[in-house]
């Protein structure tokens, strides 16, 4: 809270009220179900932004691999909660596991050889031989197993299938999966500086995505997994339940609207609970000696190292924490969507838009991330009608003709254009973010 207080307690509240007003206006002028829908995704976005803020705002790690961790969270939902694929495991499950173990063993052996063997030709040669031989053994075991699994009713399954567990369990699992991958990435890439780390992580996110898209045995690849289970009831089920209908009519609600509002409110409750828990943990961490140590590392690594702080380990720690938070959010988002569609992950949407939230909100400030998450997501959804409206206004005075038709046809592109203009305006008037660090 101190950060906010320093920025003037009024400012934070004022901005929060402003954003709340945006949502309220959406509810009043458009519809409440829509407002809730945006709120839910805004909550998820805030958590993603929080994860990025932990990495960038706390420790100055320029990691733009956000998309990869979001996708991993999504994968965890498929693995944990989708129903098992009949025959999938039997077709080649053990082979895949064995292959993966073989691959891991190869890498471990190579790392060990690199550490043990004396520097020079022998080492290079030894490591290379281990890697090459290992690679071929890996492919020999792995490929046929994968083919078998993917051939198992490809139109409906073609994957190993999930565990069929409750979908809420996928959220922590998403965090853990992201954390585990972040550990592996951090071990290799965190030594890089600034934009070099950025492009490396951007690339790693693309690699994660490539795996998700092309390894059908894992999550059906580009064939998508749809109809994932929900943690809340289906609207149609509510609409069919007499108890619900009675309840709705006793309040004078239209049952369809009531059902979707109730369902969305349930999501809101779940997401808000997660967000609040994470915010509390983040705030406590940031305003503790741990947070101070992180800021010191961000300011000057060389000096922090000389003052006894293990910079490498701390970077790894904060990278893993941030990634885990993003992974949780990714799982939440896939739960909300009810489907995993690897083709839909793009860096623009899942990395840069999240970064915009962090920067606009104010990097280093947890509440800033939340504010940024809400504001930017609202804009992202609402610039479309705003842009269309702008275009209508623009063209209203024009006489019919080629230009007018062309402009109206291009109205959809007002969407990004408007987003750009708004982004520039916000950055212009709050270059340190709406809620600066202090």
């Amino acid at each position, binding site marked *: 809270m101190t950060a906010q207080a320093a920025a003037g307690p009024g400012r934070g509240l004022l901005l929060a009220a402003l954003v709340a007003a945006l949502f309220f206006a959406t509810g009043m002028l458009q519809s409440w179900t829509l407002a809730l829908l945006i709120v839910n995704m805004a909550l998820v976005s805030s958590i993603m932004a929080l994860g990025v803020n932990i990495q*960038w705002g706390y420790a100055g790690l*320029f990691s733009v691999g956000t998309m990869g961790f979001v996708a991993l969270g999504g994968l965890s939902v498929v693995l944990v909660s989708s129903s098992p694929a009949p025959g999938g495991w039997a077709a080649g499950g053990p082979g895949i596991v064995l292959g993966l173990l073989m691959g891991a063993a190869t890498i471990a052996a190579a790392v060990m050889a690199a550490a043990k063997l004396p520097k020079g030709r022998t080492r290079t040669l030894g490591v290379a031989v281990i890697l090459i031989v290992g690679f071929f053994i890996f492919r020999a075991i792995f490929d046929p197993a994968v083919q078998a699994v993917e051939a198992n009713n490809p139109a409906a399954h073609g994957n190993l299938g999930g565990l069929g567990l409750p979908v809420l369990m996928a959220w922590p699992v998403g965090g853990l999966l992201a954390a585990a991958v972040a550990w592996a990435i951090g071990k*290799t*890439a965190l*030594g*890089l*500086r*600034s*934009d*070099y780390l*950025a*492009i*490396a992580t*951007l*690339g*790693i996110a*693309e*690699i994660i995505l*490539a*795996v998700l*898209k*092309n390894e059908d045995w894992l999550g059906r690849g580009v064939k998508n997994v749809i109809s994932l289970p929900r943690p809340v009831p289906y609207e149609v089920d509510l609409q069919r339940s007499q108890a619900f209908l009675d309840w709705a009519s006793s309040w004078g609600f239209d049952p369809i609207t009531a059902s979707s509002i109730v369902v969305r409110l349930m999501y809101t409750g779940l997401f808000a609970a997660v967000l609040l828990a994470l915010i509390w943990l983040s705030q406590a961490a940031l305003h503790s000696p741990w947070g101070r140590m992180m800021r010191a590392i961000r300011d000057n690594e060389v000096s922090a190292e000389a003052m006894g702080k293990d910079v490498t380990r701390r970077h790894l720690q904060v990278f893993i924490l941030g990634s885990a938070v993003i992974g949780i959010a990714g799982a939440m988002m896939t739960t909300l969507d009810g489907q995993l569609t690897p083709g839909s992950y793009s*860096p623009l949407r899942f990395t*840069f838009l999240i*970064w*915009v939230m962090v*920067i*606009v909100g104010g*990097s280093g400030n947890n509440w800033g991330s939340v504010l940024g998450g809400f504001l930017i997501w609202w804009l992202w959804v609402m610039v479309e009608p705003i842009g269309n409206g702008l275009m209508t206004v623009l063209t209203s005075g024009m006489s019919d003709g080629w230009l007018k038709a062309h*402009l109206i046809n*291009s109205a959809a*592109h*007002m*969407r*990004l*254009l408007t*987003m*750009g*203009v708004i*982004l*520039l305006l916000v*950055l*212009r008037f709050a*270059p*340190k973010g709406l809620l600066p660090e202090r």
Partner: protein
Amino acid sequence: MDILNALVAFLNFVFIPGLAYGAQLALGALGATLIYSILRFSNFAHGDTMAIGTVFVILLTWGLQSMGISFGPLPTALLALPVGIALTAVLLLATDRVVYRYYRRVKAAPVILVMASLGVMFILNGVTRFIIGTSDISFTDGERFILTAGDFRSWSGLAEGLAIRTTQGVTVVIAMIAVALLFWFLQKTRTGKSMRAFSDNEDLALLSGINPDKVVAVTWIVAAALATTAGTLYGLDKGFSPFTYFQLLLPIFAAAIVGGLGSPIGAIAGGFVIAFSEVMVTYAWKKVVTYLVPEAMAPSGLVQLMSTDYKFAVSFVILIIVLLVMPTGLFKGKSV
């Protein structure tokens, strides 16, 4: 054993396309790396700058074509290029005036500039589509080939053909000239040196009497030239579509990074590293191997290390490995 055919197959499908693609990336990377080194931020709008620069060139080319002007065997677009560059430069200068200048004055952190460039990217994105729509456009004319596969076959009597497109040749030649010019400009000319000084220590540059406005302006002009040239050459070779130009951003930055941000030679090297790693690692060597070994031993599989699904992943793995060994890229780039 048929070494000649193997060699030609390799040249035709791996080397020449890789070379041209590498040169295209390199030109894009040169612009990105220049802005990074002088103005100290990663310009996300670079892909869309290339796009809009190309749009200018396309419109001008159409104009020229409708007037019946052509450039002999070379694409007419090359005639339109200088004017296209000028228009793009004006646009970039205006953008700087409206957007970036403010952040320089308040000495905003580089990441703020990156985000602002994201905003500019969104806007250019829309503007490009307003002007020219979303579909893809082919605007190349003149002689299509320097050498066609068929001609080569009949000339050499080999089973394999070798094709070189005019646009490929032009791209490689122009990329070489551009990097040489840029290198000379930055290292040897007064303006170039003052630009490097400015990028190193802005305050001290002021104290040396260097005019920051001029440095910034020159940077944008050079960037406009590079972006428009890169965009036009790419469009001539592969066709223009706005969405693809946005997608180019990633390999372009990858190239700039592998080479070392801020280093013109690095950008060139990086372009080729990215291009060739994409093509080589995922290449199915079946054909080449078949030519090289006795018939009985001809491979039945594809002899492919990885499927092409992973070509992008491969180039990034190579990028990461390079960075692990040389943390600021092949040619010792900078980092802010």
